[in-house]
């Protein structure tokens, strides 16, 4: 199928609206992506025809809901090339997935004297759960530094790896800078010392092909809403042998084999980690989002976004007083910047009044801001439904803001 952005835009009803009298330009895709009609339809169809609890009813609706929910698990597993869908745990999102690993794998395997290695460019959700684990266990958090381009310093990473390192947790694609980290090489180096690796794929899965087997990653986390699915659902991928050894996290229905007052026995993965009624509609609609992405083709998506980022970066270079934050060689979909004399929050408000939605703030990555000695950046983040005309609108609005503040 040839890639046609005009046709694709028609699949996203939310894009077809005016904001403050201008056609909406949505450039906040790193915060959350918009949903195609097929995802919205999957949600409503579930509630209109299939709504039932899963894994327990013998009636038709329950069997239908269960089959669709499990089909979604299969689609997600296939999307990241997992060996088995049993390695996919449904959670509320990437944040919950990281907390799950910290509180099950971490509590069991990490203890005082151990080191957990993260990077300076992590989202708070890949920092705070490890800090909490450190407080609980007496382990220490170590941080891989980055350079002024926003790239992790690989020599420092190798120096930081040692016999006490119990886990490496790194982002695949930085939400604040757009840096694509060389996770495959880093996993290889960590594994050479027997260190397991968690990769935070929240930002990456909408933009690039992920192959967890090729990466040989131990844990990979993702959020549906960052890849055109609904909010409130995400997944943890973990290697089957790790899941088998991990204790359960939340206790409740659906995660047990037997319950008595003398003790309970637990189900096997993935159900061992899915206590309570999950976001059934969300998971099914996420499956629809993955079908949609597969139909378009990730290679076309990546190529279009690469062109958009190159176009925007080139325009940014020509704006006096604009500094791009994050200039890694390997980047995807994100243009983060500061402008002299205009605070990002003022820019965010002015752009909004011009119909352009961007993010202004620290992007839940305060250590990145501290490194660059700034309070915040303005961030334009692209998806495959964005166009170069929209980027022109962004830069026209920036020029207007500069004029207003001159």
């Amino acid at each position, binding site marked *: 199928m040839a890639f046609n952005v005009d046709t694709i835009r028609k699949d996203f009803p939310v894009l077809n609206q005016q904001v403050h009298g201008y056609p909406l330009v949505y450039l906040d895709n790193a915060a959350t992506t918009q949903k195609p009609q097929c995802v919205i339809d999957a949600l409503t169809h579930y509630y209109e025809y299939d709504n039932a609890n899963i894994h327990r009813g013998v009636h038709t609706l329950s069997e239908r809901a269960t089959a669709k929910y499990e089909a979604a698990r299969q689609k997600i597993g296939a999307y990241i090339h997992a060996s088995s869908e049993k390695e996919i745990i449904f959670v509320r999102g990437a944040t919950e997935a990281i907390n799950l690993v910290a509180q099950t794998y971490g509590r069991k395997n990490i203890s005082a004297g151990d080191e957990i290695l993260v990077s300076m460019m992590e989202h708070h959700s890949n920092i705070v759960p490890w800090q909490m684990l450190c407080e609980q266990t007496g382990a220490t958090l170590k941080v891989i530094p980055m350079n002024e381009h926003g790239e992790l310093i690989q020599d420092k990473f190798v120096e930081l790896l040692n016999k006490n390192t119990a886990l490496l947790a790194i982002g695949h694609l930085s939400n604040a800078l757009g840096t694509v980290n060389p996770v495959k090489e880093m996993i290889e180096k960590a594994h050479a010392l027997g260190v397991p690796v968690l990769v935070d794929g929240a930002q990456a899965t909408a933009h690039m092909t992920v192959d967890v087997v090729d990466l040989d990653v131990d844990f990979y986390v993702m959020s549906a809403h960052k890849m055109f699915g609904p909010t409130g659902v995400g997944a943890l991928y973990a290697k089957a042998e790790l899941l088998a050894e991990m204790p359960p996290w939340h206790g409740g229905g659906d995660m047990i084999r037997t319950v008595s007052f003398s003790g309970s026995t637990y189900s096997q993965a993935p159900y061992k980690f899915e206590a309570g009624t999950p976001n059934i509609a969300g998971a099914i609609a996420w499956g629809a989002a993955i079908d949609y992405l597969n139909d378009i083709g990730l290679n076309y998506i990546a190529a279009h976004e690469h062109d958009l980022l190159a176009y925007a970066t080139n325009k940014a270079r020509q704006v006096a007083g604009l500094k791009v934050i994050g200039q890694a060689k390997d980047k995807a979909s994100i243009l983060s910047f500061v402008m002299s*004399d*205009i*605070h*990002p*929050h*003022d820019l965010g*408000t*002015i752009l909004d*009044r011009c119909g352009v939605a961007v993010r*202004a*703030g*620290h992007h839940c990555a*305060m250590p990145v*801001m501290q490194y660059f000695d700034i*309070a*915040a950046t303005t961030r334009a983040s692209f998806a495959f439904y964005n166009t170069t005309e929209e980027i022109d609108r962004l830069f026209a609005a920036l020029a207007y803001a500069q004029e*207003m*503040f001159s």
Partner: protein
Amino acid sequence: MFFDLKDLYQQVIVDHNKHPRNFREIESCSHDADGYNPLCGDQLHVYLKVNEHHLVQDISFKGTGCAISIASASLMTETMTGKTVDEAKVLFESFQQMVTSDITEEQDFSHLGKLAALAGVREFPSRIKCAILCWHTVQAALSGDQDAARTE
């Protein structure tokens, strides 16, 4: 009533952001406090010199933030100098009332003098906290609250 961007970023706001008044420390201050907005990272420190007659002899601030928070702090220091602590409290209430008031109602803010320039934030709910951070910080300083003042 429809506010546009020029109502928010009036010349006086742009000017006070570029050239904030009383942007300095007061070494012999009687009261001071930190103000912090955790969502956007705006950070202010407010200094006051209040004499034995409860008169604000001098007031100043330092910090970083958006144009609205810097201009608001600058205008606040100008307005509050020479007022009594009680008058300052009344002013805070009037200011708070102005920035949170209903935009559909025609209102007269002339009693607020220069501060009326900030009436435009009423149209921008996400920015009200920027305008009011400095005022909360002064309240914290006067009440001796050691924790950073927050707008959240």
